[in-house]
């Protein structure tokens, strides 16, 4: 095993990798979580098998990579070098890809992406989803084989680390970070350089670097994609942090639900240790650093840094009051830096490319890019990395492709359970920390869920409150009891048992919970309610004044009298003769929605 002992060793390694014999063709197959759940692992195995059988293995290589980001159309295969891109590949398609593309050199058209006007788009770079994106954090994700350290080295891996510890100083690393303007991507947006500087300044013989990979926002999967797709970048970044603050131990706190992400990370930890990027005397220097994994066990609040630390220490994951901040008293009471995965992986790039380069991207107070997990009722679902300052409209329409069925998009929920809804009126807001705060939303960690006109905003708010009240640690009064009470009020409203006073109660309670709660969870839990109340008050009022229809109905203008709805209704409450307009007997309707699904002409109106 090659032990890297100097910068030269590292450069030599890179050269060797680049010199290596090239395959004439490489099939880059997505092995990210989404695609794996559509059997991309089997596809990979079958491809390899077929290539071998046809004795093409000297020429053609199959390369599993992390998320290719356009998860909604996965499993994806990109064939290098011409970048032909196949989408929604199934096991049945493998034969065709091998026979037609690999052997006969023909493109399998039915697997190509189709543009808005049904035109075929054959290369990945031409697909609109990718066009406005700019990758820093996801630089290597979907590009390299995460299990092959050679590939990371070929992409300048560990160069930032090598340069820093062999020919620079901790202060210089921190200075570069400060100048770059990098802010925390975990939600708070705290300047990373400053955080490291604080921790570096505290005198202690024991310090820790902690990576927050708890990724609790339900509907976000950026961090897991990074860990799965580019684990060495995280290791390099954490080691740099150790060097900068004077720590010799790091931990990745990862949620237990991400069991499959842990495996590539463990492998990467092992290989990087074997090559001397981790462990004693890294790269021949006198700096030593180690990284271990700590498992969560299913608690959203453990994403909050003090709770995370409590959990790492083997306790209930209850947040502590701040101050003291972790930089002063963190894991085991020692100074600790806690950063998000995405924050970390920006660091090696910044060190390599320089602070000036990084700060040239983005807006005045928000530098670089931000990764979002775009999901919900949107055409293009996947990971989106865009420069700070990109507007919602660009993300929703240019990158996201708008609504899949052309329905009206009602708003975008950003920031998960802590965030708020942004309506069409605000779609031209540039996405950066300050602009978002100014309109009462927040960056959050990167969940971005698109809602359409069918989504009931009171139900959505109730969904979030249900989440927060279940995930509340229960330590402090306002959050423990208050979120429960808010949830109860919402439930009452939705069940048509509320009254107009409930709206007032929701508001005052919400504001006071925000003001009084101990940690960020409670301090932001009312946001989804308060923000939807601000923008969609009429929906709340419809419930509060009980003017909202709760049953399904037939749109007489559209109904063609096909009887399909009447046949599926489980309580037989739809009447009407063949070829005549049907009618829902509202008093009996149980709002199951079966008729809505059944109607061929969209003549059923939702409540």
């Amino acid at each position, binding site marked *: 095993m090659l032990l890297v002992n100097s910068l030269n060793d590292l450069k030599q390694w890179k050269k060797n990798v680049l010199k290596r014999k090239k395959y004439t063709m490489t099939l880059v197959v997505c092995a990210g979580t989404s695609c794996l759940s559509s059997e991309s692992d089997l596809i990979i195995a079958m491809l390899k098998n077929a290539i071998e059988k046809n004795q093409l293995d000297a020429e053609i290589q199959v390369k599993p990579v992390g998320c290719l980001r356009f998860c909604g159309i996965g499993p994806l295969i990109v064939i290098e070098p011409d970048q032909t891109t196949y989408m929604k590949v199934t096991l049945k398609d493998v034969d065709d890809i091998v026979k037609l593309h690999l052997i006969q050199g023909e493109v399998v058209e039915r697997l190509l992406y189709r543009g808005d006007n049904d035109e075929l788009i054959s290369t990945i770079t031409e697909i609109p989803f990718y066009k406005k994106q700019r990758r820093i954090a996801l630089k290597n994700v979907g590009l390299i084989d995460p299990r092959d350290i050679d590939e990371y080295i070929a992409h300048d891996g560990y160069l930032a680390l090598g340069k820093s510890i062999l020919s620079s100083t901790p202060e210089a690393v921190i200075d570069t970070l400060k100048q770059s303007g990098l802010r925390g991507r975990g939600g708070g947006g705290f300047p990373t350089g400053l955080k490291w500087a604080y921790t570096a300044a505290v005198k202690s013989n024991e310090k820790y670097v902690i990576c927050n990979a708890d990724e609790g926002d339900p*509907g976000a999967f950026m961090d897991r994609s990074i860990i799965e797709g580019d684990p060495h970048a995280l290791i390099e970044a954490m080691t740099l942090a150790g060097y900068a603050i004077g720590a010799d131990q790091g931990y990745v706190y990862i949620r237990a639900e991400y069991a499959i992400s842990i495996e590539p990370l463990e492998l990467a930890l092992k290989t990087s240790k074997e090559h001397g990027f981790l462990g004693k005397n890294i790269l021949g220097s006198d700096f030593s650093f180690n990284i271990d994994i700590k498992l969560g066990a299913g608690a959203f609040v453990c994403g909050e840094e003090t709770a995370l630390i409590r959990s790492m220490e083997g306790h209930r994951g209850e947040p502590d009051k701040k101050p003291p901040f972790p930089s002063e008293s963190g894991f085991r009471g020692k100074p600790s830096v806690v950063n998000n995965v995405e924050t970390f992986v920006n660091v090696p790039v910044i060190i390599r490319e320089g602070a000036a380069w990084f700060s040239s991207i983005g807006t005045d107070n928000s530098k670089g890019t931000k990764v979002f997990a775009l999901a919900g009722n949107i055409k293009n679902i996947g990971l989106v990395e865009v420069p700070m300052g990109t507007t919602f409209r660009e993300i929703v329409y240019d990158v996201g492709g708008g609504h899949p069925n052309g329905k009206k998009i009602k708003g975008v929920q950003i920031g*998960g359970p802590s965030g708020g809804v942004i309506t069409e009126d605000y779609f031209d807001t540039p996405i950066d920390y300050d602009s978002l705060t100014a309109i009462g939303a927040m960056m959050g960690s990167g969940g971005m869920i698109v809602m359409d006109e069918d*989504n009931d905003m009171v139900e959505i708010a109730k969904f979030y409150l249900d*989440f927060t009240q279940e995930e509340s640690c229960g330590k402090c009064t306002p959050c423990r009891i208050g979120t429960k009470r808010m949830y109860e009020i919402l439930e009452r409203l939705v069940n048509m048992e509320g009254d107009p006073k409930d709206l007032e109660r929701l508001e005052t309670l919400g504001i006071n919970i925000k003001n009084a709660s101990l940690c960020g969870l409670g301090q932001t839990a009312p946001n989804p309610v308060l923000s939807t109340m601000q923008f969609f008050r009429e929906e709340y009022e419809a419930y509060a004044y009980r003017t909202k229809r709760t049953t399904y109905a037939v749109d007489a203008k559209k109904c063609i009298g096909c009887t399909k709805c009447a046949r599926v209704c489980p309580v037989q409450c739809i009447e009407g003769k063949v070829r005549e307009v049907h009618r829902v007997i509202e008093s009996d309707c149980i709002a199951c929605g079966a008729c809505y699904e059944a109607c061929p002409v969209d003549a059923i109106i939702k409540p």
Partner: protein
Amino acid sequence: MIPNILDSKSLDKDLLRKLSDYINGLEGDKQEQLIHVLHKAQELFGYLPYNLQLFVARKLDLSGAKVNGVVTFYSFFNEEPTGKYTVSVCMGTACFVKGAEKVLNRILNSLSTEKNKITEDGLFTVKDVRCIGACGLAPIVTVNEKVYGNVTVGDVEKILEKYRGDRVVSE
């Protein structure tokens, strides 16, 4: 007198030995690694009955209340046995806005069960989970390790059928 529910004699001896070996082999502060130990215990036994929790408490020199406090805090730990198949419906936001709640209700109906309860035949436990990171395919249902994407109410029977009764096919 120690109440019956706490008597570790009824626990499988081989598994207990494995757990002991695991704990004995831990390096560093063992109490700090309680959560890892509980993961291991649950992996071995399938769930964490009271006597097993107390066993862990004693091995780590912690009080029973402390261990029980931790177990009941984290949703990943089960104090009740779970079915052979754990059917998890993702109720993350991406899945929710795409109708995951309906899917969940259909599954519960179809199995005539409640959330987190084991079905009478011992085959299924249905849970709701938060985002598992495959939002691209929302809504998501998993059965043990197997992930099903873009699940509609109509798919529920097809999925469950694979695991029911004698038709159980090994994965």
